[in-house]
């Protein structure tokens, strides 16, 4: 919970003001949904997705966009995690490099983040056909977000 709040604050106060080369912006919020523990009830996950998105939206003035994108990945996260979880785990665990292995976890993050970004930028650019600009914004934001999330995951690991 405290971790989620910290991420949200960082997103709202710092990242929303950053625009690499005038395009896009790194989005760190998805990490809150990506790292929901194994075994989280799907309804609870959905509420997390919507709630996180709703708060991010209010502060960024993107009403509905983050909440739609985060609700979608919150819908996908539990089954995807089940599919990719190590076979021998029984108890609840929080997805991380340590539990899932480096490449598998990276692949897990990349997929969910990609889905999130596709929806986010599709909705943001809705009804405007500047495909090139939207694609550039999405690409830059995707790479920046991915790097940030990996960094945040390392910070979290060091804290333990």
């Amino acid at each position, binding site marked *: 919970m405290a971790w989620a709040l910290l991420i949200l604050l960082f997103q709202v106060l710092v990242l929303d003001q950053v625009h690499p080369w005038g395009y896009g912006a790194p989005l760190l919020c998805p990490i809150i949904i990506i790292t929901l523990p194994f075994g989280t009830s799907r*309804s609870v996950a959905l509420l997390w997705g919507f709630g996180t998105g709703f708060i991010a*939206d*209010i502060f960024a003035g993107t*009403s*509905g966009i983050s909440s739609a994108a985060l609700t979608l990945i919150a819908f996908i996260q539990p089954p995807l995690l089940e599919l990719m979880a190590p076979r021998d785990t029984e108890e609840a665990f929080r997805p991380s490099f340590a539990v899932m292995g480096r490449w598998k976890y990276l692949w897990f993050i990349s997929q969910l983040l990609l889905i999130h970004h596709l929806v986010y930028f599709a909705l943001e650019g809705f009804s405007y056909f500047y495909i090139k600009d939207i694609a550039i914004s999405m690409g830059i934001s995707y790479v920046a977000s991915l790097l940030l999330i990996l960094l945040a995951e390392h910070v979290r690991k060091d804290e333990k």
Partner: protein
Amino acid sequence: MHDFIERITAYIHWALFLLLETLSGFLLFQYNHYQGSVWFTQANAVAAMVHEWEEVALAYLRLPEENAALVRRNIVLQQQNDLLRHGNLPTSLLRKGDTIASFTLPVNETGEAYSQIEARIIDNSVRKRDNMLVINVGSDDGVAPEMGVVSGTGVVGIVSAVTSHYALVMSVLNSHSSISCRLRGTEYFGYLKWKGGSPLRACMDDVPRHAHIKKGDIVETSGFSAVFPAGIFLGRVAEIKNSSDGLAYELEILLSTDLANLRHVSVINNHSKAELDSLLSQ
């Protein structure tokens, strides 16, 4: 029966998923219309307060740039002052009791002075398709929707909604923004629009092909609407292109104001706007 309930609870997340996505869609369509409610935007009380704390905390770090901007603005004002002194404008047009701060803008067609309300930007974005700003003045300070917002270097946007202490401003960098403009020294006018991409470039449509235009020409407000007085700087012509139908020119404009790096602005209060509006609606 037991089986039935079990089946329902097994699929309840589908219903919840659809419900939450519908709700998101509702928020998206309902509140992204900037004229709509200000409750779910950055101008709602809680979000605005947090952004204001952030602004206060960071303001100190940007003092050097602020200083530079003030100096630049000072120069602009001095030039304006000089124009007023040597120009044809009779000083009697200035309203009694106007301070220096409220009299630096030119007078409008009906002879009344525009006054300015100083404001600070507390939230700003340039990365979206429809960018909005929040400023720290609202209806209690005399700000109302449809008022123009300018900075020392040019046009910033138009107020779209107000609460008692904050106002939501539609930035020039908004796909819905359309500002009546002209080429300085000519009668050719058009509308300044932003088509996304770089926050420093916008375009001006519908310039007739017989117009003589060259790169570097100044684009300023036309004064046709009561929102902005005529002659406020918008930018310079950076590129001259053919419009998609080939019948007119489309000018690419290098904006004079860097909206990504802006802190102090003024809201323009046109005292006779209400009068003009009622005249136009008759």
